């Protein structure tokens, strides 16, 4: 009985994931959040590592530019929330607030989306 319920729930999850393919990008979002909030210094190794993982998921699940732009929208909302809650003085000094790193992620995903759109 319990086994059947687990299988049923598992299959429902797979159906949900296949219908909402953007769901597969959740790990990427988590990785980006980790990069922004857990590290104080930006690193190209992390950035391009996450981006290659993103490319892999895009290829694997044949996601289009609209998915990338949707992902950008999520990043934009995150950036905006951070922006209004960050001390404004931080934007005019050489220090790098975490919102700046989110904004860089937003920029990178916009670039990827535009390149995808050119190719589609």
């Amino acid at each position, binding site marked *: 009985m319990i086994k059947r319920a687990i299988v049923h729930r598992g299959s429902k999850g797979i159906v949900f994931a296949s219908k909402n393919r953007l769901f597969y990008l959740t790990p990427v979002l988590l990785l980006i959040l980790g990069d922004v909030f857990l590290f104080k210094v*930006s*690193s*190209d190794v992390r*950035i*391009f590592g996450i981006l290659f993982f993103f490319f892999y998921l895009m290829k694997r699940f044949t996601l289009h*530019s*609209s998915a990338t*732009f*949707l992902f*950008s*929208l999520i990043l*934009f909302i995150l*950036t*905006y929330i951070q*922006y*209004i809650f960050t001390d*404004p003085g931080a*934007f*005019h*000094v*050489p*220090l*790098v*607030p975490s*919102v*700046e790193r989110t*904004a*860089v992620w*937003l*920029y*990178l995903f*916009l*670039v990827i*989306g*535009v390149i995808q*759109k*050119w190719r*589609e």
Partner: protein
Amino acid sequence: MYSNNSYIQKEIMRKVIVVLVCAILFILPFFWLAPGELEMGGDSNRLFLYDPGSYLNVNALYSIDPDGVGKVRPDQFLLPFLFVLKFVHRVFQSGYILTSLLNSLKLVGSFLSMYLFVREILKSYSQKIAPFPAYAAGMLAGFFYTFSPGVGGNIPSALLTHNQVFLNPLVSYLLLRFLLSHQEKYLWVILLVTFVFSPNFSLKAPPPLFAFYPLVFLFLLLYVSVILRKSLPWKKLFVGLLLFIGIHAFHIFPVVSHIFDATSQYYVRAFSTAAGKNVGLDYFNAARGLGKVINNIFLSYAQNHVRWATFVPPLVIIIGFILNKKKARSLLLIVSFFLITLFLSSANITDIGIEFYRMLFYIPGFSMFRVFYGQWQWVHTFFYAMLFGYSLYVVLIQIRRRYAYVLIMLFVVLHTISSWTFVGGQILRGVHPGSKNMTSIMRMNPDYEQALAFIKTRPDDGNVFNFPFTDFFYQVVPGQNQAAYIGLSPTSYLTGKRAFSGYQTIYPFPESFLKLIREKNYVAIKRLFGLLNSKYIFYIKDPKAFTQYYPTWPYSLFLSSVPNSEALSELVDSIRGEKVFEKGDYLVYETDKEYYLPHIYVATNMLPYEPTGDWYGKNASFFVENNSPDPRVAYVERDTCGKVFSEQECLQNTIKYTGDLPVITYKRVNPIKYKVEVSAVRSPFVLVFSDKFHSDWKLYVSKKEAEELNVGESYFNGSIRESTHEDIFLNGQTFETLDMQSIPENQHFMVNGYANAWYITPTDSLGNQRYEIIIEMVQQRVFYYSLGISIVSLCIFLLYGIKLIKNRTW
């Protein structure tokens, strides 16, 4: 029939609304200032808004800086712009109206050009354009651009090139229309606009020009040829380019000749790898942290409590991409340029991106973009507004009309809130940093105006030393109200008298000067004033000009020697001569006559000195220990001395010229030409000319009989006399030195740490005892020739315009 009429009515209504918005924008700047108020300060100042005529005569006609020791620099690019301002000023007789009109032009020009540009670009989205969304997108893009920080943030202390805020979209729109229609009238108008606003198209201030036009031109070429697949009018473009060079020759060629002068700072910046690294890359590395992606996404004024209202444009752009199902290639092209400019203006995008940016500084000339977050902001804002307009159109055509209205209203309200500091004009009323509530919007003090008029009418050729003395090249001029002008010295730029106002204007002496004040060595200060040909001291006693209102900035260096107003009064009293003018808090003194050296003098002594030894590394304090009773000394570096005089002479501590000194009478024809009547010449002598040393200052011995000059001021028992000075820009004698041979350059050398001197022997004058010398800055000739080319080109250009009208191609 009904629907057709309704469409026409709606179109008329839309045009009426555009006109109404333009009218509001036109009126708005008149509320920023009250009648009689002026805002003119900053690094490049806007004194031309107060007195464009004097500014034109003093600053724009000659290749000599009217400030400090008179370095060579070609600033003729101001001419057409100042002529127009002079005309408008003559009509309205008001600096306030002139300032407001210029600001109105910026607002209306920005809005209208951006609106038209976006509407034109939207035509490529589909074959049939939805009228209302296209109209709304154009309006809002124009509104967004006009009140963005890129336009309004720099309006206080605006640089000369600030007109770019409306010129950039205007020229881009006209160029787009030309590339699409191939109609020459657009090209003609572009050329006219560039001519009138030539400061924005000058090589003298290249960053605004090269940060914007190459990128936008590339964008337009790709848009027309790749996206629209239309042919490009290459031949007409080439003709346009030739005409552009022709009508702008008067400022392009002098700057180009200046760039290839190995002693100029332009040459160093453009061609020196070491300087490129120092001025460019090192500066970039130091300032890199100030570039932020976030600041270029949420365009916000420095007002913290309303920055939340800046989210609509980036949100609309992203939603536009999500909603856009078709492959709009023009949208992709716009966003590509938007992302490129975002990268250029923020710089800090991944370590690889930063390294790439650093490599760009090895391109000759790229160091001009070292203040990258400022230099690229205008082109970024331009593409941002374009992208916003395009995305908004994509969104508006896909949502219901009532939601469209909500979105439009939301944006208008939020953008007005976020830019209210600019819309309401408060941005102009900012307090000077570190001051006690002093702003830059001032009312001219009539007492100060009288002091300026007094200085302007002095008949002699003496310089002016301004007190209080600032850290940079500024002068602080308090107004009648709680405000002050802080910028380039009005004494220099409006009276035609060269003035010393700050630390940077008295190179190589600033550190020596401050040290001498601390040591209270007033005799040496008087000697320094003599070397600088300072005949007057202009002392602004108003407490609003000094420490009571400006406790630190812009006096932090001066305060180390003169800590307060009392100390300043003591200093002035210790070094001044006779008082010649007093009105309120404005005093003009003569300097001590015993130490004064006229602009041109014959040296009685040459004092060789070692080139190193103090802070400047040039022994700038060589004059301090001299106890000679006669101030007519020429101090020469021992190395330089050896090039002109014998080694034996240079090893002495003093080379004396006694007994047979000639008598000279000199006249200033204009700031780049002087005539000197020399008589009683019996032996070689050294003639000193106290302008900054430059190899293009040439001395000619005229073969004609010396002109009999009338005598005004007289010094040293009549051995040096000043005649009545003139200010002749062009006459029959302007080119009289063309067929003359100048004194060989090995007889031309630097004295007094900065000035020109010539060693003149009887051979140079063919043994004559009385003759005429002409001292001329020959770089000015390039301007005269270029001006000729410009006048001819302008005639061709005007005839071309008449032809276009006659052929009804207008």
